[in-house]
Structure formats: C-alpha cells, structure tokens
C-alpha cells in the first residue's frame, strides 16, 4: 500500500477515479457506453473524445517542460493550423475530395512544424527565455490566424475533413485513436531510445549535459518542433469538430490547460523527469473536471476557480520547500515510530 501511495501517478489517478465516481453517484448513467448505429456513445467516450486535442497538446508540452522550457504559443498554433486547413478545404472544388483534404492537412502540419521550429530557434539558438520567446508567437499568432481567415469564421462542409474530429473507425471515434497513436508512438520513441534520458539530462542541467557531450541545443529545438506538431494536429481536430475555423477563439486558454495537465501528471516545471502517462491522466482529469461542472449543474463560471485551486495545490505539493515545512511540523511525534520500524526490518 505504501509503495502504491508513493508512486508518482498515485495522486492524479486517485483524483481522476474519485471524480469519475462522484459523477457516477450524481448521475448513474455516467458509466454507460452505448453502441448506436455502429458508433460508441456515452459520457466516458465524450471525455476521451473532447479531451483528445488537450492530450495531444499536453504531450508536446511535456517534452518542452522536461527540458526546462515552456511553450505559450500552442493556442495560437492550434488556431493557425485550423485556419489554414479550413481555408484550403473551403477553396476546394469538391470539399469531399480525399486528396484535397489530405493536402490541407499536410499544409497545416507543415506550417505547425515551421512555427515550432521558430520557437525552438529563439529559445535554443538565440537563448531567449522560453516564456518570452514563445510569448511572441502567442501574441502574433492570433493575428496571423485572423489574417489567414480574414477575420471571418470559415465554415466548411467537407465530410472528409469533418472525419478528423468527428469520424469513427471501427466504432471508436477517430480523434481518440489519433491521440492514442500519438501517445503510443511518442512514448515508444522517447522511452525505447536514449532520447528520453537525454531530454531529462538537458532539463536537469543543460550546462552539465552539454559538457557531457549531449547536443542539448538540438534536443531543445526538437522538443519545440514536436510541440508545434502536436498543437497543429490538435488544431485540425478542434476545427474539424466544429467544421469551422475561428482565429480568435480556437484553442483559447489551451496552453494553460496543457501546462496544468503536465504539472498534474507529475512533471516538474523546472525540467528533468517527465511522464507521458501522467500527462495523459492529467489531461483526462481536466477534461473530466470540465464535464463534471456541466453534469453536476455547477455554474461553469467557477471552473476557473477550481483550476486555480488545483494548480496551487499541485504546485505546493511539488515544492520541496513546502514539503520540508510540512514534514518538519509532523516529524516530531513520528520520529519514534520510524526508529522502531528500522529495528524490525532486519528480522
């Protein structure tokens, strides 16, 4: 029990389960998953489906944060990628054409890669602080997205594009599969090669890892490109979900949710160790929180208050200083018990 409670993912998972159980008690139909017209439906599926973009963005953010950085521009990248893809699709002669839609997706993804590379260049080559370097794209990106859509909301009718966010493959929503694939592939690449270790090394101490021969500059650059890619795909998903591109509101606040998901997942904001699994749990927790607010009939306005309290609590728990104080206050009566245990161990 003790080792279980000590696991890094114990608290976020417990919180997620508690929240789900709370929902179940409030509305017993919460856990029911139905098969309607060959598609899966239900609250749980909805959480996964609408949480998919957040999971994607948070995955990218995890690597950036693991290197000790931060990417504030993901919301803007989401808006830009959705805008350019919708613009391309809306200009197709036949909006249902697979080829044209794929081209739109390709262009959006390529543009997101370029934007990520710009962030990476500022941070790794010019040495600008990550908060500030990505702030530029965050400010200018919304303007760019509106420039692409010409200030309008572009609506599209193509079924092929709608499938990205709303389609189903073998009864499962496509967006869930995309998020799952992104999680699987990135976890595999990062954890089955030395890449993950190197990223953690860079996050732990960039200078030391550089001296040890790690190409930290290139690695940091790579994480921002990856983050841009994830945000771009999430942008496609979000715009496809509503069949339109809104340069102003698409992906608004998603950077904050993504950072929150990463932090809840146990990745420290100062860089170093990271956990993809934790990030996914964190993203699901946030999405469930939003759903809970609606199912329980709590005024949605208080969601932000909730989040503020959660961020603070998680950060305080992670802060070594806070733990130290807390422990010092509790330690005096506990000292004897610890000593007794130590005696018993060799037996």
């Amino acid at each position: 029990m003790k080792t279980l409670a000590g696991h890094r993912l114990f608290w976020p998972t417990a919180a997620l389960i508690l929240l789900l159980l709370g929902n179940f008690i409030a509305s017993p139909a919460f856990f029911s998953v139905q098969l309607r017209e060959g598609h899966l439906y239900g609250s749980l599926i909805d959480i996964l489906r609408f949480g998919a973009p957040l999971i994607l963005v948070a995955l990218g953010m995890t690597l950036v944060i693991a290197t000790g950085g931060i990417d504030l521009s993901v919301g803007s990248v989401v808006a830009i990628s959705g805008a350019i893809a919708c613009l391309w699709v809306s200009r197709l002669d036949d909006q249902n054409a697979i080829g044209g839609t794929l081209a739109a997706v390709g262009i959006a993804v390529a543009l997101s890669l370029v934007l990520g590379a710009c962030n990476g260049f500022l941070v790794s080559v010019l040495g600008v602080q990550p908060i500030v370097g990505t702030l530029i794209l965050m400010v200018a990106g919304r303007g760019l997205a509106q420039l692409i859509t010409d200030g309008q909301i572009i609506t599209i009718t193509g079924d092929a594009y709608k499938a990205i966010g709303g389609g189903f493959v073998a009864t499962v929503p496509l967006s869930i599969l995309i998020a799952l694939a992104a999680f699987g592939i990135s976890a595999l690449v990062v954890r089955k090669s030395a890449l993950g270790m190197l990223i953690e090394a860079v996050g732990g101490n960039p200078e030391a890892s550089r001296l040890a021969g790690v190409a930290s500059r290139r690695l940091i650059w790579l994480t921002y490109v990856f983050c841009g890619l994830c945000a771009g795909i999430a942008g496609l998903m979000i715009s496809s979900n509503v069949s339109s591109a809104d340069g102003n509101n698409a992906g608004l606040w998603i950077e904050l949710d993504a950072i929150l998901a990463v932090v809840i997942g146990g990745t420290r904001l100062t860089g170093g160790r990271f956990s993809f699994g934790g990030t996914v749990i964190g993203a699901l927790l946030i999405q469930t929180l939003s759903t809970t607010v609606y199912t329980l009939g709590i005024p949605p306005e208080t969601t932000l208050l909730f989040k503020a309290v959660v961020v603070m609590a998680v950060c305080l728990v992670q802060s070594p200083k806070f733990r130290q104080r807390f422990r010092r206050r509790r330690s005096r009566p506990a000292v004897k018990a610890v000593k007794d245990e130590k005696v018993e161990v060799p037996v």
Partner: protein
Amino acid sequence: MTTLTVSGRRYLPILATLALLIGAYGYGAASYDSFADPQVVLNILIDNAFLLVVAAGMTFVILSGGIDLSVGSVVALSTLVSAKLLGHGWSAPAVILVVLVIGAGLGLGMGAVIHFFELQPFVVTLAGMFLARGLCYTISTSAISITDPFFTDVAQTPILLPGGMHVSIGVVIALVVVAVGVYVLHYTRFGRTVYAVGGSEQSAMLMGLPVARTKIMVYTVSGFCSALGGLLLALYTLSGNPLHAIGMELDAIAAVVIGGTILTGGSGYLLGTVLGVTVLGMIQTLITFDGTLSSWWTRIVIGALLLLFIVLQRLVTRRTR
C-alpha cells in the same frame, strides 16, 4: 571610457524605442493630415492610461527578475468589484480603498507564495490569473455599468491644457504613478534593492539586502498597480466587465520589453516603459488612421516588435557580458 560605452549600450534599447516612436509619429504626420495634431498624442495617453499604470507595476516585477501574469485578471476583477459595490450603494472612496486593498492583497499573497515556497513566479501568477478571473465570473458573468456620480464626474471632467487640448484625470493619475515609481526605483533603498535582486539574487542575499521583503513587495506593487489600473479602466469605460483586459498581461509585458527593460531583470528604466506604452498606442492609432488595415495587424506588429526588441536585448546583453 569602458564605463561610458557600457552605460551607452544600456541605453541602446531605450534609444531604439525612442527612434521608433519618432519615426512612427513622423510617418503618421507625413501620411495623414490630422495626425500631427498634438491631441492625437494626448489621446494615446488617454486611451492607454490604465495600461501605463499596469505596465509600471510590471516594470518593478520584471526588474526584479520575475514576471506577473495575473495583471489582466486583477484589472478585470477591480473593474467588476468597483461596479458591483457601487451598485450596492457603497460610497466611492470606500470602493476605491477596497479595490486597492484587494489588488495589493492578491499581489502580497502571490509574492509570499513565490518567496516562501520557492515556486516559479510564472506558475504562481498563472494560478493568480485563474483565481482572479474565476472570481470575476462568480461575481457576475455580464457587464455592470457604473452610474455613481463621483465616478461619472471624474470620468467626464477633462483637464484643459493650453492650446485647446485636454487630457483625462486618468492620465494625470497615471503620470503621478510613473513619477512616484521613478522616485522609488532611483532614490530609495527599496528601488536599489529591486535592481540588485534582479541583477543577481544570490549576490543581493550575500550583501545582506532584504531579498525576501523586496521580492514580496514587488508583487504587492504590481498587484496595487493592477488594481489602480482597473479603477482607471472602470473610469474610462464606466463599467465593470469580467471580459475586460483579457490578454492585457501580454500588452503590459510587451510595453516593458519594448521599453528596454531586460527580461532577466536588473536593467531598465520606468521611463522606457512609458515609451513602450506610447509605441503600442501609436501602432494602434496608425492602424486606425490607415483604415484599410484590419485590427489584427496590431497584434502582428506588436509581435514583430517584441521579436525585434528581444533579439536586440540578446545582442546588447551578450556584448556587455
């Protein structure tokens, strides 16, 4: 000789901003007939008085090496609290006092958490941003208008200047805040310590400077300035709105950076921030005067300017080191 060139370089970003400002004004005056009217410049101040106050507070934080993302939400909260309380029949001075205390209190709280638990300023103020915005929505989800006679009087009384020009009382308050800020930063111990902490917290601590008090105070100043900025915005719009000042923290940071304050702290001037705010206002005015450019160009131009100045900063700091 070396000291001369070093201090010369330190002024370089500010000089660049000044050149940019003069260039933009010159371009505007040459292109549009009515642009040369000094009232255009005064209007920039009138429209951005609240931003100036908030950016002044932000300058303190950034000089100390921190960052405050909560300012926009605190501004919105201040407008909403004042509108709500005035609606309940509170007297104007009491409302102003309560709003300022709330703002300073929030800043104090965030500063204390940042210092005592050694959390990153960015995260703590992000949580503060959620908190303040969340409080806004809990107070009201829609705009509340202000009809209090004191507020409307102050808002609508122009201060006449020679030559038929005028400014609002908000501008005067903002300029007073800037003057006090300049005095505090350059002529008090607290101001020197802010620079010292921003230059190197470790050294400041070893020198026996009150680092803890200064760090907490800096966020209190920023919270106070945000609340005051909120009051000015409430005066300017005569309403409280939970949607006020979304993304304003970015404008404030942009103004400080364009004003030549180095983001890692320890170097910069409050007067530079005034220039930064004026540049932002000038861009907006130019785009309005042009008429053919859409509003989103403002964001793109501000982004491009931020990029330019941050790269410039890197070059300057790299050489001086």
